[in-house]
């Protein structure tokens, strides 16, 4: 008897709490799922919060993935069980998560962000065009090497989709110039190896004209190795993303420029667009089903303003 009443009270409490969670009856519950936990997503979260605050027809739940496809599957199943109206997700392994995304798409509105899964039944992608980002890096390379030269590229894993696309963008831009890519050295995200790769490149190729880091930590790795070799200013550096050391390097002139993404816009635009679609307005979805958030090139003079904004967004 006691057990039954306890169960009854618990159920009632859960129902009341669940009821409290709704803003209004017409409110849609949206979820924003990341691939892992990093500084990048702290900024995207601010974007989702802004969308949540601006619109009274949505509530946004922010979920951090653990870097694995299995972890994401658990989160998505959990969200579907709760009956969310829309999920925006950055798939860890798009090629092999198609089935999960298709399954979710049958039951709710699914967007991809940050990393696309074009083969799936997702409604739309909101994120970076990495080929275009590669082209911007290519333009930076051309600007520091007007007379051409040999360049070396560094990345964690070259089979990663964004690495492939950035490389493609760079190759497209430097095609027909006298700039030659010596090789792409990989480090499996081991920062010790990343730095050693650069140090050894400087030894093996004394004539290397520029060093390009495709992933965020490659920036500091290149910067530190070049500094140790006393070659700051002699070998131009081009990087991606905005690690603290990378920004300091751009500010001091040691790095010619860095190509940065806008995660805040991923969060804000994905949530806003989903809200519109749920309200019956599909005009925001282009025929390509891809909404590209442009990447930015930061040079020496842009760093102070960018840093200020970054501190605001990160809230620290």
């Amino acid at each position, binding site marked *: 008897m006691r057990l039954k009443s306890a169960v009854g009270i618990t159920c009632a409490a859960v129902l009341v709490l669940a009821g409290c969670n709704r803003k209004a009856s017409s409110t849609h519950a949206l979820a924003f799922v990341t691939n892992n936990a990093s500084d990048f997503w702290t900024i995207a979260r601010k974007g989702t919060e802004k969308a949540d605050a601006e619109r009274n027809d949505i509530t946004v739940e922010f979920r951090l993935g653990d870097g694995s496809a299995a972890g994401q599957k658990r989160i998505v199943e959990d969200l579907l069980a709760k009956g969310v109206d829309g999920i925006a997700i950055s798939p860890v392994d798009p090629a092999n998560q198609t089935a999960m995304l298709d399954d979710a798409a049958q039951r709710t509105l699914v967007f991809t962000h940050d990393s696309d899964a074009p083969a799936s039944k997702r409604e739309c992608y909101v994120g970076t065009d990495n080929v275009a980002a590669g082209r911007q890096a290519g333009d930076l390379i051309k600007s520091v090497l007007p007379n051409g030269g040999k360049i070396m590229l560094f990345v964690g894993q070259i089979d990663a989709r964004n690495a492939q696309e950035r490389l493609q963008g760079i190759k497209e831009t430097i095609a027909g110039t006298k700039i030659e890519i010596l090789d792409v050295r990989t480090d499996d995200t081991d920062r*010790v190896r990343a*730095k050693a790769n650069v140090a050894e490149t400087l*030894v093996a190729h004394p004539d290397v004209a520029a060093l390009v880091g495709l992933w965020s930590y490659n920036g500091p790795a290149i910067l*530190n190795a070049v500094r140790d070799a006393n070659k700051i200013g002699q070998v131009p550096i081009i990087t991606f993303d905005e690690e*603290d050391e990378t920004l300091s390097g751009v500010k001091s002139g040691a790095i010619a420029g860095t190509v940065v993404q806008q995660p805040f816009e991923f969060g804000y635009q994905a949530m806003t667009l989903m809200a519109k679609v749920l309200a019956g307005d599909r005009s925001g979805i282009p025929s390509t089903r891809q909404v590209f958030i442009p990447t930015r090139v930061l040079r020496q003079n842009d760093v102070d303003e960018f840093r200020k904004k970054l501190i605001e967004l990160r809230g620290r």
Partner: protein
Amino acid sequence: MTKKKDLAIFLLLVVLCVVVTALNPRFLSPANVQNTARLIGAFGIFSLGLGLVIITGGIDLSVGSSFALLGVILSIMLTEWHLPWPVAVLVIVVFAALVGLVHGLLITRLRLQPFVVTLCGLLVYRGLARFIADDETKGFGDAAGFRTLQHLMTGSLFGVPTPFVAMALIGAVMWVVLHRSVYGRHLFATGRNETAARFSGIDVRRVIVSTYVILGVLTGISAIFFAFYTNSISPSSHGSFFELYGIAAAVLGGCSLRGGEGSIVGILLGTTLLQVLQNLVNLLGIPSSLNFAVMGGVILVGVVGDQLLQRRAAHVSS
């Protein structure tokens, strides 16, 4: 036997260096020798400790995760709490020693297997590192307030990188301890046959615990070198799999995973060989993707050659 093993791996190393120099003379350029010596030093220091543990028949899989945890703590102590750097360094080394002590006590008092204890360590320390750092990359910035430490860790002494100097000093002390002291003999005896060692009056438990504490101290020292080498610690990947470099160096250097065999010189030669292998991949323009395959291949050649030599020796002596 050990001396012969050391000689064999030394010859392998020399042959490799000669071949690489012939293919790319820049291998012997001062810049490359310095770069490689720096990495040999940082990897060699903890490999010595790991070798000691392996000689007693143990293993430690948690070294790489410890690097992440210690690195994160070091960064927080220096850049957020602004502790004087000698205090921070002391805290790291003592903390690492305590971690080793806990491993040793769990292994000897609760009779848990070293593999299991340190596998748990691998998971726990990585998780703690990520939690403490809030999954954000920790760094040293421009090292304001602890430039001396940064110079010490990243600098050179008469052209020799400090990690290498530290490794040479530690190696010399360890050589005396392992090969010229009673403690060293107890260590080998424990590794060869723990029961027999116990019956002959050796405090086996104490010997085993001491090796994990020594490994802890050396892990702490290596952790500081690695942290300043990268100047930033990403808690999810820093030091990942580094324990395998140490284990590979020890095995390549003649240590047996069954315990009871190994030498300091062998471990250092093994470490050197591993770093030279990674260096030559870049210097000879071998695709990065083949890096691990080259390393694995050479280790296999090394242990196969060792096995054949031993069989021949056994055959001759019988």
